[in-house]
């Protein structure tokens, strides 16, 4: 429904543009932003940050026009890309592909049409298509989380791990995490999939709690899972025994870190705000003569009580 309104809006703008042919709007640089629709928390944050960045950039640079479209699936996104090129006649594209494989060729076609292409988060299956690549760092997220848990436990203790949905993202995170703990006396009691979902996090943690009498730390990997874990630990009345490390940067968890909650001492970022980074870099291509082409891999910043304020967006849905 939102997408529809946006299309309607875009159509109106287009209509107005046609009506006032050649008046002022001609020199505008159009940047299309294609992202997945807000079907889960992280994507919700993505959409919110894209909208915020759109407002901010358009206010700063009157000659830049940003068009954000969101898609509910890979096919829909491929259609969006065609529309952006043929109907909107964009100069640059910022795209967070729904899935890598099915969108490689559609993005390649945009590139072949002579547009500047920025790919975000999920890389394409063929190298050399995009001018700019912006992404979070999944292995780094796992490594940093492992590093923190090692430090807190002095290389000794028992932990449980809640994994995400079985995908490359999950595997990369978990592999790096396990590698970081190698050679220590930290025992991973078990790892189970909680599918980046609160309810699953709650249930899996309940079962871990009845199965293991001693748990020193929990790596929930994701903030939605972490929220479920928190409730399960509270219910079992074992809050003094362990701490929980989540990931992503959801406002509820950042708030807890900011307030100095003993249960969630830190959070590791995998920020949906990366879409704003990508949009800004793309805009720089047109507003400055600084070279921007290249790969931007964002660090997996550790959020602690000291710096939490910088990452707290109370208005964001995520």
């Amino acid at each position, binding site marked *: 429904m939102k997408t529809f309104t946006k299309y309607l809006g875009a159509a109106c703008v287009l209509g107005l543009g046609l009506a006032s042919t050649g008046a002022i709007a001609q020199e505008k640089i159009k940047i299309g932003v294609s992202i997945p629709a*807000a*079907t889960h928390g992280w994507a919700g944050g993505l959409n919110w940050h894209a909208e915020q960045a759109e407002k901010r950039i358009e206010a700063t640079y009157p000659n830049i026009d940003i068009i954000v479209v969101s898609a509910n699936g890979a096919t829909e996104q491929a259609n969006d890309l065609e529309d952006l090129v043929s109907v909107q006649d964009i100069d640059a594209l910022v795209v967070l592909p729904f899935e890598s494989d099915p969108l490689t060729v559609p993005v390649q076609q945009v590139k072949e049409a002579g547009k500047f292409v920025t790919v975000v988060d999920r890389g394409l299956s063929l190298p050399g298509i995009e001018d700019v690549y912006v992404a979070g760092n999944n292995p780094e997220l796992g490594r940093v989380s492992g590093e923190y848990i090692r430090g807190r436990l002095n290389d000794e203790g028992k932990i449980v791990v809640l994994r995400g949905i079985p995908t490359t993202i999950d595997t990369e995170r978990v592999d790096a995490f396990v590698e970081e703990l190698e050679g220590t006396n930290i025992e991973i009691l078990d790892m189970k999939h909680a599918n980046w979902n609160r*309810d699953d996090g709650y249930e899996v943690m309940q*079962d871990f709690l*009845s199965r293991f009498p001693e748990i020193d730390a929990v790596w929930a990997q994701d903030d939605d899972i972490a929220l479920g874990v928190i*409730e399960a630990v509270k219910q079992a009345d074992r809050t003094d025994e362990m701490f929980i490390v989540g990931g992503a940067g959801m406002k*509820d968890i950042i708030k807890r870190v900011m307030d100095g909650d003993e249960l969630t001492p830190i959070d590791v970022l995998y920020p949906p705000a990366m879409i704003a980074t990508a949009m800004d870099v793309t805009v720089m291509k047109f507003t400055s003569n600084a070279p921007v082409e290249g790969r931007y891999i964002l660090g997996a910043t550790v959020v602690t009580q000291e710096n939490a304020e910088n990452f707290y967006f109370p208005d964001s849905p995520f």
Partner: protein
Amino acid sequence: MSSLERTEASTSSGFNIDFKALGPFLALVGLFVLGTVINDAFLSGGNLSNIFTRAAFIGIIAVGATFVITAGGIDLSVGSMAAFISGAMIVVMNTLVETLGAGVETVLIGILVSVLLGIAAGAVNGLVSTKGKIEAFIVTLGTMGIYRSLVTYMADGGTLSLDFGVRGVYRPVYYGDVLGIPVPVLVFFAVAVVGYVLLNMTPFGRKCFAIGSNEQVARYSAIHVDRVKTLTYVIQGLCVSVATIIYVPRLGSASSSTGVLWELEAIAAVIIGGTMLKGGYGRIWGTVVGAIMLTTIGNILNLTDAISNYLNGAVQGLIIIVAVFLQRGDWRRKKSK
């Protein structure tokens, strides 16, 4: 059809009838034995209470689904409906905090909203499919998409979180207990008892069986088919509402990923319990056992690392098929001959 089968079974041997009704119970006992063998912690009071409490959501929804399916219908919208009603409850209660404060009134109004929405949503499914003469599969597939989008829209793609003050007041509805039995388990039991009486001891229940067996014959027998069928969807909506009332205080949140695939779990619980998917025969206690079985499988898989995580779905699928085969398959008849 089903009544024919039953008479045939009862005449052939006394062993068979018992087995058919007891099938789901025996499968559950089997699962419990398996769980105990796998991990001692399985039979601990905490774990058992976890299983029954968790089973309450799907179980309550599945009791409603037993009515719909017995009367020859199907409702695919229950998972989305649960997410939508949870979301609406949270929005209403958060708004009320400003005027009424975070008190019991706020929670009661939230619960009232949930019940009204459940009845309304069920009535829409029922009326559109009966009066509109559209297959229930299509109608509820449509409403499934509608409710799912509505909750995503309300949450702006993110998560709706209940006000922390209200959470404190509302919390005992999920986490509380009476004489050591968790509240959700008591609610589940009460819903099942009411469902059992309604389905097996009232004219309404008999009409559900009749319509599910043969809608034409039921119509000729002066049964108000449309009215009864619509009522089954209303009961389903009401059950979804009861489930959300105990779901919301658990994590105090709703998002687009709330209740995903609950409709399939509810339908699976109903069928495992011995109700016929094509209608005409329903068994509430079977449904209750079916829901507990589904939860138990997930619990057992979490208690062991013997099976690769990637194969969890396969194990679940296999156990469901075996459980239904044990009570349905031809193997019993051959043995008795």
